């Protein structure tokens, strides 16, 4: 089914590192522009929003790995950990820029924001929930936790939904951009209950046994 040329195995590792390098570029570039006074208007807000938006993009990309494999036969599973961790780092940078650059460490204001503003409470919840996922995004944790790892990492569904909601609730008018992310996350989440029946149906139809590797099948992200 895959029509793309497959990446030689020896490049798998380097390609993941390349993804990290490319993934951090939006933040690095925006930080450089902000620090050198080249972000127009409200530089701190621009930076903060850019980090949040990229966090959401990486969450969407993380969730897209499974459906892309199911529907198009492209196995990009090797990139999922990097995408998920990039999402975590961007959420963390998003929060740090809010705390350090935007609020200038005015803790009473920060605590009041987190406690009283539902969209900030939701965003903060997403960040907190991402921490255990980031900490267990390594082979050792996967081995150690076994099936519990899969269960734990289903939190990403809640996190992505929270992220899209946080974005939509933060703006004065919910526009096409917010609707796009809500729709993307909704579609990607909706795929999860559909995928097993779909894969079974496709197997029966083609009469071919198990097109996918059984262990990766289980680790449905």
């Amino acid at each position, binding site marked *: 089914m895959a029509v793309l040329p497959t990446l030689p195995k020896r490049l798998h590792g380097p390609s993941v590192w390349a993804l990290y390098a490319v993934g951090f570029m939006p933040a690095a570039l925006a930080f450089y522009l*902000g*620090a050198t*006074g080249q*972000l*127009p*208007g*409200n*530089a*701190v*807000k621009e*930076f903060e929003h850019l980090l949040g938006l990229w966090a959401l993009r990486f969450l969407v990309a993380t969730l897209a790995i499974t459906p892309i494999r199911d529907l198009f036969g492209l196995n990009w599973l090797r990139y999922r950990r990097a995408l998920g961790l990039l999402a975590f780092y961007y959420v963390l940078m998003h929060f740090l820029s809010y705390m350090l*650059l*935007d*609020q*200038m460490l*005015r803790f009473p*204001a920060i605590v*009041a*924001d987190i406690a*009283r*503003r*539902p*969209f*900030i409470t939701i965003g903060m919840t997403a960040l907190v929930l991402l921490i255990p996922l980031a900490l267990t995004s390594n082979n050792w944790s996967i081995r150690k936790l076994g099936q519990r790892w899969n269960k734990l990492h289903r939190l990403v569904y809640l996190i992505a939904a929270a992220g899209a909601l946080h974005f939509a*609730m*933060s*703006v*004065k*008018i919910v*526009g*096409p951009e917010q609707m796009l992310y809500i729709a993307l996350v909704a579609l990607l989440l909706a795929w999860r209950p559909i995928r097993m029946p779909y894969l079974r149906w496709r197997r029966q139809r083609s009469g071919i046994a198990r097109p996918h590797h059984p262990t990766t099948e289980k680790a449905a992200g």
Partner: protein
Amino acid sequence: AAALKAAASPYRVDEALTPEEDVTSYNNFYEFGTGKADPAARSGAFKPTPWTVKIDGLVAKPGEFGIEELLGFPLEERVYRMRCVEAWSMVIPWLGFPLATLLDKVEPLGSAKYVAFETVVRPEEMPGQSGLFQPLPWPYREGLRLDEARHPLTILAVGLYGKTLANQNGAPVRLVVPWKYGFKGIKSIVRISLTETVPPCTWNLAAPSEYGFYANVNPAVDHPRWSQATENRIGEGGFFGSNRRDTLPFNGYADEVASLYAGMDLAANF
């Protein structure tokens, strides 16, 4: 934008002016799009001349005023703080005249209690007013109590930084009420009506729990989704410096305007 002459005015905030670059490139003007850069980038097709402002409702002498006529009023330069409801602020040298000067010409009737304003609707020139997604119902509407409208601080601005208004700033004529949040400062005005009842206001109708009719700058009353206690001064401090400052009651104009609201609960009438 053409050069514009104006007399100096005692209404002059003693704070650093926000660079003209920022004043003309960081705007909320949803008729041109919801992004801060949209108004400057997408208002090129807008034609601020010819222009007339219609004044009707409860007035003895309704009529229309051409923009040339309005530019002929004795103009003053007023350096005001501008506090957006989104918790950012600027200091802007406006050119304009007191709204009261215009109201005097049309002679409001004794029954008039409020002043209603309307922005132009031109989907062919204002990209935010056409297409599938439209953020607000048009025309944009705003309103003031008559005594607020007559207050000497309330002006109709026709320029800033010594020039006629750029399209993104609300050319050719807009309202400036410095003690209220920026969204009260309706842009590109085509109609002013004197009414007996509270006029409909766009943001107030869109989200009544977030944007009140009065919309007086008040650090003690938070927006439901953010604190109004502090503000970011645009164009200052940069990335690492502290450009966040305390927001002042009535945006620092309490001495002049607090008496307008004597006895009112400002948390209920936000």
